[in-house]
């Protein structure tokens, strides 16, 4: 069970692997040699498990249906059909099957956990949180329940509560790389940068291929003022994975803060090559061009960013600056006012300092 939870998984495919884990962990094949002669339900059930494992989900579903038709109180069949339906993105029927499994076996922490996952997939985050809570109540050392509840709480910006859940997940599984990673993020959001850096480091030690931890540790080091340390992390990441536009964009931001505007512009350019519709990279390159006094290029990049996202306040602010330097005072004022309308208050200050007057 913990083999998966120790997160020896591809970072980008947690949901898929979670599903695989749930089936394998929960359901053992019922041995044919021990079956009494007429155990038709078990036969279908075992066939369903085999088909699930070969990723023939639709065929597996039919077998679990037959198993349940033959034996309507077959808890494991409900559970596995729910898991199969989850894989088929049939979340509502999956929840119904988990309901049945829980009805028949109320102490099943994995059924609560599975239902929580399905409910999350349905966007029912509060209900999912309740299911994770229940799973953790039923079995306090079940690390995934704590971890996923922590993630939900993190997304509600309740970082303190999230951190407490990640603490519990780590207590239940001291090698849980994801939990270290996400606890680091919770610490980072609370401004506790040193603790965050330590936890990201721990996650990386446990799972060196958890590369996003490098990016996040870099961002945290940047926030803590350790720009050179941040640059080192970005460099390590890019040496291992060179097709991530976000990594180049964030390294560019660090180079920008180190006043290496040429280097920053080169990174933003690379990010744009990897993802031509990455508005952040375009906006950031506009900022670097402003520093390099290449105002027309800055205005062009900010305009492209705004074409991708017309509500992008920062791009309005930067284009305003470029336009001012290009002697388009009216255009600059419009951009600064728009940035202020979109929530960047400093737009009002920029406009006032350049004598824009009212809107």
């Amino acid at each position, binding site marked *: 069970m913990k083999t998966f939870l120790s997160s020896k998984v591809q970072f980008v495919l947690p949901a898929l692997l979670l599903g695989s884990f749930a089936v394998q962990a929960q359901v053992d094949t019922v041995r044919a040699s021990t079956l009494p002669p007429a155990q038709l339900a078990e036969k279908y059930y075992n066939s369903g498990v085999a088909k699930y494992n070969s990723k023939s989900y639709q065929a597996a579903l039919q077998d679990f249906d037959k198993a349940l038709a033959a034996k309507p109180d077959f808890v494991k069949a409900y559970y596995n059909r729910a898991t199969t339906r989850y894989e088929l993105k049939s979340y509502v029927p999956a929840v119904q099957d988990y309901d049945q499994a829980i009805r028949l076996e109320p102490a099943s922490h994995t059924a609560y956990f599975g239902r929580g996952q399905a409910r999350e997939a349905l966007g029912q985050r509060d209900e999912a949180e309740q299911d994770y809570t229940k799973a953790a109540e039923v079995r306090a050392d079940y690390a995934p329940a704590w971890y996923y509840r922590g993630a939900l709480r993190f997304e509600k910006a309740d970082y303190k509560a999230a951190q407490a859940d990640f603490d519990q997940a780590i207590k239940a599984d001291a090698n849980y790389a994801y939990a270290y990673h996400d606890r680091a993020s919770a610490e980072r959001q609370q401004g506790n940068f040193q603790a965050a850096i330590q936890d990201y480091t721990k996650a990386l030690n446990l799972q060196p291929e958890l590369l996003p931890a490098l*990016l*996040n540790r870099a*961002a945290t080091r940047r926030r803590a003022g350790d720009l050179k340390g941040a640059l080192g992390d970005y460099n390590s990441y890019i040496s291992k994975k060179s097709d991530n536009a976000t990594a180049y964009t964030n390294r560019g931001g660090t180079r920008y803060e180190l006043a290496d505007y040429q280097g920053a512009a080169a990174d933003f350019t690379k990010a744009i090559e990897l993802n031509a519709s990455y508005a*952040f990279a375009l906006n950031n390159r506009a900022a670097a061009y402003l520093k390099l006094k290449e105002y027309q290029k800055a205005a062009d990049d900010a305009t492209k960013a705004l074409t991708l996202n017309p509500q992008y306040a*920062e791009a309005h602010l930067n284009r305003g*600056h470029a336009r001012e330097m290009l002697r388009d005072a009216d255009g600059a004022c419009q951009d600064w006012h728009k940035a202020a309308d979109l929530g960047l208050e400093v737009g009002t200050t920029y406009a006032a300092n350049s*004598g824009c007057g009212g809107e």
Partner: protein
Amino acid sequence: MYKPLLFSFLLLSFAARAQSVEFSKDRFGNDKDGLKAALRELKEGDQWYNSDPVRYEQALPHYLAAQKFNADNAELNLKIGDSYLHSGAKPQALPYLQKAYKLNPDVDPRIHYLLGRGLHLNAKWAEAIAEYKAAQLATTGKNPPVSLIDIRKKITECENGQKLAEHPSRVFIDNAGPSINSPYADYSPVISADESVILFTSRRDNSTGEQKDPETGGYFEDVFASTRTGAKDKWSAAHNLGQPVNTDGHDATVGLSPDGQRMLVYVEDNGGDLQEANLRGTEWRKPQKLGSRINTKYHESSAAYTPDGRSLFFVSDKEGGQGSRDIYKIEIEGRGPAQNLGPVINTPYGEEGVFLHPDGKTMYFSSEGHNSMGGYDIFKSMFENGKWSTPENLGWPINTPDDDVFFVISASGRHGYYSSVREDGLGSKDIYLITFLGPEKPPFLSQEDQLLASRAQPVKETSLAPPVPIATAQVTIMKGVVTDEATKQPLEATIDVIDNTRNEVIASFRANVQSGRYLVSLPSGVNYGIVVRQDGYLFHSENFDLPAGAAYSEVVKDIALKKLDVGVKVVLNNIFFDTGKATLRKESTNELERLQALFTEMPTLRLEISGHTDNVGKAEYNKDLSQRRAKAVVDYLVAKGVDKARLTSAGYGDTQPVSTNLTKAGRQLNRRTEFKVTGK
């Protein structure tokens, strides 16, 4: 290896020891006519160069003519360089001085100093310092060619320049264009506070009398004017103001009141004096002397009005100051002597080109002292808590190693004007527009991170930039046209500016007789009553309560004065009550006294005083409050001796709105005290 090295050494030696070529028959025997003409030019140049005082600008064209014949004479190159150093194109001296030194390192005992000057004026700070230091070493004996004090000052200026150039001012500097500038010298611009009018001095060829100054060779100075024709820095073709402002001699404008109705003129009489001219309609009246409290036998040059028009800041080199030219302040209508602004502003060196911002507390001036980077630099100082702040150099590239003088700035603080010699000029000095871009505007970056290991959803962050200071001017400009409400004709009304808190008229202005235009500057930090009055009309009052630090704004308010007639209503904008009460606040005193005076001036006048509210709250309450407030005004007037029979009071609550109640501005207009003429 050995031979090529020796060869290189010999080449270098040869290059360094280039010989000065004499203007001699031995050298130019095959071009006797050319030599003769060149010697003639040299002789004429020398006559100007050796005259007392030296006429460098007259010498220069002759020297340049001789230089065309023989460009390799050390002495001639030195004289050209020296003449350029004393011309309007000082940076051009450098290549001639460098060549003179190359041709003959001993060409002149001042050569290192002159090279220092040439480098300094080209903003080559470090190289200039090196030459000045070499000049220091060469300055020995009882009669050194250059004073050590002067050299030390120049070194300090270069050090200042190095520091200031490291952090350039964020400005655009644009030529004001051919509507204003000419191929001749154009300088000393002055503007109205709203930049609608610019006056400047020019030595162009269509000067009054079209005479040339025999001393300098150029045309006499005249004052020219241009008006803004659009919002985008477009100006009408400048026109000569003509007589009586301009005469056959030098006539230079040095100051303009914020409303553009009064001008200060410099004349050469009496060692240099200041005069004042008034605008009547579109014609400037003959300038009048400013009197002996300002003008002395010494040199009085530039001057500026305070925004209330009651005081003058001016420059004089009279005795008793800090040294050279100093800035003084004087009340124009007062009796006391002019006050030297003291050592925070004035230095042992020259101060010139004083200008007062319409905010009433910011002064701009030029100085050869403080941390000048060379010649006169422009400085800024604020008068706060009873004293002037340490002058702040406006920095590079506004200031240069040469003289930067006669700077003026708009009320908004956005635009400055001055004259400068620049590469994109139309010839000689030109007038330039400086656009201030304000504090640095840091760009904003975005980034995102995938903060949860089990989620693919990134979280966006914006890299926060540090807060940016707000740097707008703290003054409100109120301007417009005063007319007769019935005939729509302009009126030459008087505009009184009142400090309501102190119950004091702090300034009075007149609208232009022909256009009815007026402009008043209202520095922030005062509750202003503005009263527009004209004999035969009921007064009009406005209120501007501008807290300290209120940012720049420009309010256009056309005012139509009403003649006294039964039924006419006038809003009393400067009557204030405590919130929700009928207690008159003391800031109302001036308006109430004005009302009282109206009864005295017009013995048969009868008025109804009425109170009005917006529609916020219960109608009954509003009606009662407005009634009590109107009565409070009547009671005040009766207590001051106005016959009770001449006054009635009425409370109309929200029943007579003059604007919408849907907006804050509309509701504010509806909350008012007004009077109606019920008998005359």
